């Protein structure tokens, strides 16, 4: 099982994702530089968090034009599992691989804290090993995490069960007061229609070891491994 971790200039959770899959899960992992045009036989692609191109212009905007993104598109079109975390999610949206956009958090400030998210679907390569309704404690760290789609598209997303993670409290209940950034429908993560491309704002790679406060994030990567073996 081999993960490709794409590095854009300004990515800064690339090493964290690498550490999680390589050292915590014991899987193979390769860094792929954004100018590369070869995913080197990877089974799963990870677009890590960070501030690609400084988040200048708009988060993820410039990175979505990187040469490697053509390969990621091909890989996704062939059904390969792709996950975008935080800035990686923003890049997937800018690249048109997922629907919607991320606005500035409703209270404007950057937020770094733990949140709870509820798993809304287990038929994706990144949630297959989780249980439906399972509550995960994961960190967030972003200023532009306020997910937005127009109401008609939101209805589509819901109807197609494309919402994969929702902000909730520790008991799994959603409410405005536990929605950290104002995302429509408390959406923390979504997938594409084909369900192989997933994007989320929380950082599962930061929650893979209990020493760091939570290992709830492991299930995301373990799912990817299991999905491939299956």
């Amino acid at each position, binding site marked *: 099982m081999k993960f490709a971790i794409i590095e854009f200039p300004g990515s800064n959770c690339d090493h964290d994702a690498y550490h999680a899959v390589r050292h915590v899960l014991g899987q193979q992992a390769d860094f792929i530089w954004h100018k590369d045009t070869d995913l080197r036989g990877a089974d799963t692609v990870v677009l890590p968090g960070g501030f690609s191109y400084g988040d200048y212009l708009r988060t993820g905007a410039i990175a979505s*034009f990187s040469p490697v993104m053509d390969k990621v598109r091909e890989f996704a079109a062939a059904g390969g599992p792709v996950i975008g975390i935080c800035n990686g999610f923003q890049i997937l949206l800018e690249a048109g691989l997922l629907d919607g956009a991320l*606005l500035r958090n409703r209270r404007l400030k950057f937020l770094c804290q733990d949140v709870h998210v509820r798993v809304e679907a287990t038929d994706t390569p990144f949630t297959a090993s989780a249980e439906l309704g399972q509550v995960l404690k994961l960190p967030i760290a972003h200023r532009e995490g306020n997910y937005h789609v127009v109401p008609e598209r939101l209805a589509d997303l819901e109807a197609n069960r494309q919402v994969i993670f929702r902000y909730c409290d520790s008991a799994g209940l959603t409410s405005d007061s536990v929605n950290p950034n104002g995302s429509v429908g408390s959406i923390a993560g979504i997938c594409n229609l084909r369900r192989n491309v997933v994007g989320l704002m929380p950082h599962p790679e930061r929650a893979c070891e209990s020493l760091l406060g939570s290992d709830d994030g492991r299930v995301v990567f373990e799912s990817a491994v299991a999905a491939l073996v299956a």
Partner: protein
Amino acid sequence: MFVTLKPSVFDPQGQTILDALSSLGYESVRDVRQGKFFELDVVADSAQEAMTISTEIADKLLANTVIEGYRVEVDPKRGEGD
């Protein structure tokens, strides 16, 4: 080149400024929306061409048309000095 959030999209920055203004006593301000603008220095043979290039750039890169609208203005005089 002017890029603004579409009217249907909530603008938290504009709202915050509005709140600040009202707490400063500027009651006459009814609404604030924040946008970005870009000054591009484009070498082109005609204003027409500059417009085409700029519009393409705005559409492709500078605006995210999912949430933003844009408007392009060309100031051809600028170039003449060069």
